[in-house]
């Protein structure tokens, strides 16, 4: 008795999100699905819940092969999923959210449904005011509402996709209690997470997924060293560091608080000297981007002091930051960094310091040819930005950095680039560093962080979690810290 998958495959374009996934889970167990961002966990769960159709492979529940073409099929056999952002209808009442999609006669009997809501939520230990709007519920309460609804529909398998994102510690404890009691009552509970600590605390068994494949399966407890290694793979660091001597501090943050959405960076003090490289580690969306955007002047800190070269840039505009020598390269090269539809030459004209009304296109073409040579961009002055490969787009962005820069802010500078392009990008960046530019960059690649940073700031759940000098840490510890766990 239990849930099993056999050789599940699913691709999006050229990306193989699930590349032959097979596992078995016994009824009555609380099973963790662990993996870093983009490992293929969510895709797999959406296949199990019928949201996606697998390209190939098979799902069995209690010995029967399932035909999962839509969520309706999954619900029918008792597989329910709680999405990371609970899929409730915000302007509808709790009661309407509860009954929407449920089977029954056309004529809605709301008093009957209300009784059912009270009965099922009572059994689970939840309380709802059925007339409240879903909008007024906390994320934790929305989850409870979804759990109630799925249990009412007769779920045998409940999938929780990163359920602890955006809920309070108290709600988390309550959620864990609920999950345990559901498993004790014979349900299969799948707990999908990238947070080691939670999986260790909660789960009976675990499956680790990396790059669309199952790399590890075992009953808990497993030491977190093993789990980190399975999640991230082996981390190799070459010893080719030659740190430049640091100059005076360039970027200085003193007790800065920045808020953006669920990100809440509090009381951060950090400085980055001339010639220093600071790496920002953490899972995607843990706050690195928010910090970079605040340093770039795209987001005003709510309190604290932000200065560059001793100039106070609190509440200063993006233009003021540019004037102070701050330059930001966002991760969305084509979305945020470049302009689709305009050429290399036009990009360089846009960023040049020439402020004349007329453009000398011959000179602009000549200048573009020069930059194309300098940065080995594969393209012509007239090539539009979107025609360039990712690596060449990044080279163009590097070419657009003004000569006199004090602070470079880079978001995933080598993401999606092949090894050669990545090495080239860093070669140019390190030249800048030797000239006394400070560099702050975010990356998901532990290897890159360890190789190029002098200091690493680890983000977790929307705040700075730890800071390490690069000589004092290693990939294993970073893996732990990224998962929100201090090595004990």
């Amino acid at each position: 008795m239990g849930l099993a998958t056999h050789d599940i495959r699913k691709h999006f374009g050229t990306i193989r999100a699930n590349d032959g996934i097979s596992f078995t889970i016994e009824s009555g167990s609380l099973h963790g699905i662990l993996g870093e961002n983009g490992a293929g966990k969510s895709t797999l769960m959406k296949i199990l819940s019928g949201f996606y159709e697998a390209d190939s492979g098979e799902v069995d529940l209690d010995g029967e092969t399932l035909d999962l073409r839509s969520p309706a099929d999954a619900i029918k056999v008792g597989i329910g999923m709680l999405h990371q952002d609970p899929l409730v209808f915000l302007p509808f009442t709790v009661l309407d959210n509860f009954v929407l999609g449920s089977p029954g006669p056309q004529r809605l009997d709301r008093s009957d449904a209300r009784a059912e809501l009270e009965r099922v939520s009572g059994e689970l230990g939840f309380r709802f005011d059925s007339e409240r709007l879903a909008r007024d519920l906390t994320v934790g309460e929305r989850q409870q509402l979804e759990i109630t609804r799925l249990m009412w529909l007769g779920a045998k398998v409940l999938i929780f996709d990163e359920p602890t994102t955006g809920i309070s510690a108290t709600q988390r404890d309550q959620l864990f209690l609920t999950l345990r009691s559901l498993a004790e009552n014979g349900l299969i509970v799948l707990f999908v997470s990238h947070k080691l600590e939670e999986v260790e605390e909660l789960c009976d068994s675990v499956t680790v997924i990396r790059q669309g494949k199952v790399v590890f399966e075992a009953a808990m407890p497993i030491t977190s060293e093993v789990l980190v290694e399975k999640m991230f793979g082996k981390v190799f660091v070459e010893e080719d560091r030659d740190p430049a001597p640091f100059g005076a501090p360039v970027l200085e943050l003193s007790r800065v608080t920045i808020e953006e959405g669920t990100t809440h960076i509090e009381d951060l003090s950090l400085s980055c000297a001339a010639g220093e490289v600071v790496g920002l580690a953490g899972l995607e969306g843990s706050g690195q981007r928010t910090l970079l955007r605040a340093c770039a002047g795209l987001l005003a800190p709510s309190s604290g002091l932000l200065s560059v070269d001793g100039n106070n840039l609190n509440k200063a505009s993006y233009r003021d930051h540019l004037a102070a020598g701050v330059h930001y390269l966002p991760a969305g090269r084509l979305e945020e960094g470049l302009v689709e539809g305009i050429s290399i030459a036009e990009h360089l004209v846009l960023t040049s310091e020439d402020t004349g009304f007329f453009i000398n296109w011959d000179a602009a073409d000549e200048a573009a040819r020069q930059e194309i040579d300098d940065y080995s961009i594969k393209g012509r002055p007239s090539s539009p930005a979107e025609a360039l490969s990712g690596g060449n787009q990044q080279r163009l962005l590097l070419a657009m950095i003004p000569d006199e820069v004090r602070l470079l802010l880079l978001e995933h500078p080598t993401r999606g680039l092949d090894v050669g392009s990545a090495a080239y990008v860093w070669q140019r960046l390190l030249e800048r560093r030797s000239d006394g530019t400070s560099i702050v960059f975010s990356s998901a690649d532990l290897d890159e962080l360890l190789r190029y940073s002098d200091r690493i700031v680890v983000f977790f759940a929307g705040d700075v979690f730890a800071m390490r000098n690069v000589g004092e840490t290693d990939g294993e510890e970073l893996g732990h810290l990224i998962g929100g766990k201090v090595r004990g």
Partner: protein
Amino acid sequence: MEATLNSIIAAAAPLVIATMGETITEKSGVVNLSLEGSLRLSAMTGFVVAFWVGHALVGFGAAAIVGAAIAAIIASTSIRLKLNQIAVGFVLTLLAADLASFLGDSFVGERGPRVPALPIPILSDIPFVGKVFFDHDLVVYGSFLAIGVTWFVFYRTRAGLNLQGVGERPEGAFARGVKVNTLRFWYTVLGGAMVGIAGAAYSLDVKLGWRETLTLNLGWIALAIVIFGGWHPLRVAFGAYLFGALQVLAFQLQDVFPGLAQVLPIAPFPLMIIALVFVYSSGFRRIGDHFPRLRNLLGSEAPAAMGTVFERE
């Protein structure tokens, strides 16, 4: 007084049917922007077919098909080809309006059949109420039915809840097993058919006969009334009647106050803007928080997924 109210209700009937249709369509998440053209082309088609056959009812059927076909183009290009609903709707508006002028040119001035009056026995004898509500023809009774049925389906049936879910958060509806795109397609077609029926009502019931300016601007007005009505059938109906009242009033007062008669027909537009400012104010929402029963009626939120394309992956 009785006669005035009676004629307001009769004059507003086509607009009521058209706005109910568009409310259903938009509530499911699709914007049928082609109303101005749909109304005109279906008014023309309805008249011409009824004129040939000699039967008003057949004209209504043909007009409903025209409205449904235009709506089906918008729904299917949006669902299958992921085209922008606004762009397709706008192009269809221009196309349908010109097509109506071109094809209907030789029928201008002809007299076609009309919808017979049908006072409801007994009910129409009730003093005042009977004269106002029950001394009409099938089109007007159809408009009453449209309001009642739309309201009932929206708020008292599972189908209506699913319909609203699809327009509000298609991923959520899909995760609950609702067939998002199938529902969107058919509700758009239904809404379009109602718009078609409204078009025929203008040429076969309200004004009799076809001319190019018969439904001029009424499609745009219908779209505005749906917004003003906050996508709630009763408030949308109220908006349609308010517009009908101002038109009838302008007509009746044109001898007495010629100046006023000039102003009244355009009064709905500034009124709508003021009404929109009012319904979007926070105070208005707070009334809803205190009286949950009124909340639906006072709410003014557009369906969150209106105008978007739902893709599973």
